[in-house]
C-alpha cells in the first residue's frame, strides 16, 4: 500500500521541492556527473586500459574503454541516489528540520519518503544523462568506440527505476543512524561493495556460487550489463528484466521499512 504513495500528488510536491532547490544551482550540481566519466575514462580507460589492452565480453574482444563506458552509467546510477538519500536526506531531516515542517501540511510520512525516493530516481537519471552525454561526445570525438552509441540513452528509464530503489535502500539507514558521521558505514560497507560486485569497472569472475548469487541480486550489475548490451550489441537482453525485478524487490522491501523507521524516529511510534 505504501508503494501507492509514489503516485500521490503530495509525493510529487515533495519531489518538486527538492528539484527546485537543486535546479537553482544545477550548473554546479552537474559538475560531478559530467566530470566523473571524463576522469574515469582518462584514469581507468586510457591510463589503466593501456596496460589491460582488450578483454572478452559475450564472446567479443573489446577495448577496455568500450567495456568501461556503459558501466559508468550503472556506477553513477547507484552513487547519486544512494548518497543523496543518505547525506542529503539526513541534512534535511536533522539540521534543516524540513520533515517537521512538511508533516504539518497535508503531506504524510509515506509521501515524504516517496518524495525522497522519486527525487533520488530523478537525480540519478539526470546524472546518468550527463554521463551519457559525455560518453556520446567522447565517442563522436573518436576517444572511444561504441558500436551502437545512440542506443545508450535508452538506459535512462531503467536508471530511474534503479535510482528509486537505491534511494529507498539508503533511506532505511538515514532513518536509524544516529549522526551524519555514521553515514560512512552504509557508504563504505554497502554502496562501494555493491559497485565492486557489479561489472561496472571490470568483469567479475563468476566461478564462486556466492559471487554468482551476489551478481544475480545486484541491480547495479544488471544495469551495467543492460547498458553494455544496448551500446555494444545493439539490443536489450534479459538483464533488463533482472534489473527491473531486483530493483522492484528492493523498493518493495525497503520503502515500507524506511517509512516505519522514520515514523519511529520522527513521531515516536
Amino acid at each position: 500500500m505504501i508503494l501507492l504513495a509514489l503516485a500521490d500528488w503530495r509525493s510529487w510536491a515533495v519531489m518538486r521541492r527538492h528539484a527546485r532547490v537543486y535546479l537553482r544551482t544545477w550548473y554546479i550540481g552537474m559538475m560531478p556527473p559530467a566530470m566523473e566519466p571524463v576522469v574515469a575514462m582518462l584514469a581507468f580507460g586510457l591510463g589503466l586500459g593501456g596496460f589491460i589492452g582488450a578483454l572478452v565480453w559475450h564472446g567479443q574482444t573489446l577495448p577496455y574503454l568500450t567495456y568501461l563506458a556503459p558501466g559508468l552509467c550503472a556506477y553513477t546510477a547507484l552513487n547519486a541516489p544512494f548518497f543523496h538519500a543518505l547525506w542529503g536526506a539526513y541534512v534535511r531531516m536533522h539540521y534543516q528540520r524540513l520533515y517537521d515542517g512538511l508533516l504539518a501540511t497535508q503531506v504524510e510520512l509515506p509521501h515524504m519518503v516517496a518524495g525522497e525516493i522519486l527525487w533520488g530516481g530523478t537525480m540519478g537519471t539526470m546524472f546518468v544523462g550527463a554521463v551519457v552525454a559525455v560518453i556520446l561526445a567522447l565517442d563522436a570525438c573518436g576517444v572511444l568506440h561504441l558500436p551502437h552509441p545512440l542506443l545508450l540513452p535508452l538506459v535512462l528509464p531503467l536508471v530511474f527505476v534503479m535510482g528509486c530503489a537505491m534511494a529507498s535502500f539508503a533511506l532505511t539507514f538515514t532513518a536509524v543512524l544516529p549522526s551524519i558521521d555514521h553515514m560512512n558505514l552504509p557508504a563504505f560497507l554497502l554502496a562501494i561493495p555493491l559497485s565492486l560486485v557489479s561489472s561496472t569497472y571490470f568483469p567479475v569472475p563468476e566461478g564462486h556460487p556466492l559471487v554468482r548469487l551476489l551478481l544475480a541480486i545486484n541491480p547495479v550489475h544488471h544495469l551495467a550489463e543492460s547498458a553494455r548490451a544496448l551500446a555494444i550489441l545493439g539490443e536489450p537482453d534479459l538483464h533488463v528484466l533482472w534489473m527491473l525485478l531486483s530493483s522492484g524487490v528492493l523498493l518493495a522491501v525497503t520503502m515500507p521499512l524506511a517509512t516505519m523507521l522514520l515514523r519511529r524516529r520522527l513521531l515516536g511510534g
Partner: protein
Amino acid sequence: MASDLLLEATGLVKHFAGRRVVDGVGVELRAGMVLGLLGPNGAGKTTTLRMLSGFIAPDAGTISYFGRDFSTARSATKRMLGICSQEDTLDQEFPVAENLLRYAGYFRPRVDDLHARVDELLDTFGLRPFAGHRPEELSGGFRRRLMIARAVVHRPRVLFLDEPTTGLDPQARVALWQLVNRLRGEGLGIILTTHYMDEAERLSDELLVLAEGRITARGQPRTLLGAVLGEHVAVYATAGDAVLEERIAAWLRAAKASTPAPIMDEWHLPLRAAQLAAFAAAFPALALRLREPTLDDLFLKLARDGEGAASAAAHAGRAP
C-alpha cells in the same frame, strides 16, 4: 452555537513507554476563540497538541473537526489546519516570499489567488522588506512571524501555536500578540500553548490546565483563578523562623488551604476570602500584603502539586 464548533475531542489517551502521558483529555474549540493550553513541563500539553494536529494518533478517544471524525477525513481536515510549531521548521533553502509560496503547494485544493495571498501576508506580518531574504537572515521575532504567516497561508480555520513567543524580546512578543488577536478577529479558532502566563491571560478566551496528563482546571482566565486559587494572594515573610513556618503549615493543612510558594524571601499564599480572614486572625503578628492572584500563581501551584504527587509516588515505590 453548534455551527461554530470547529474541534471536539473527547477522552484522549496516549501512552509512551508504558507511561500514560495524556489521560482522558477533552477539548472544544469554537470559531474566533483562543484556547490556552497550560501546564508545567511534562503535563501532556505537547502530546495533546500533537494528537490534535495529527502528528500522532491517540490510543483512545475521539477527535472530530467540523463535525467529521479526524481519522476518517484526515487529508480534508488537515487542509483546514495551520500548525506553527515551537521549533523553527522554515525551509532554509528559500527566501521569505518563496517559503510562503512553496508551503502553500503542499495543500489541495490549491490556495485561491496564491500570489495575492502571499502579498497580503507579507504586508500583514511586516515581512515585505524581507521578502527576498533567507530565513537565517531574519531576527528571531521575524522568523516567528514568518512561521505564523506560513501556518495561515492556506487559509486554515484552526491554528495551533506552540509557544509562539518563546525567546522573543518584549517588543516582538507584543507584535505577535497583535497578530494573533487579528487572526482571532478573522474567525480562526486558535489553540495556544505558552509558558508566559501574562500571554495566556491576555490572549486566551478560555484556559485548559493540564497536570500529569489530566485536566485539572478549565474556564475563563479570571473565573479559573478564582475557582482554583481563591480571590487573594497573601504575601508574608517569616525571616526563617522555623517554628512559625511549622505553625503556618499546620494551620494550612487543617484549613485545607493551598501551600504557599516561596519566592525570594517571601511566601505567596493563595487564599479564599473566608480563609484570608481566618488566617489573619490566627497570625495577627504576621505582616500581610495582599494582591490579586495571577496565572503565575496558578502555574506555581500546579507545579507544586505535581512535585507533591511525584514525591508521594516515589515514596510509595513507584514511578510518578
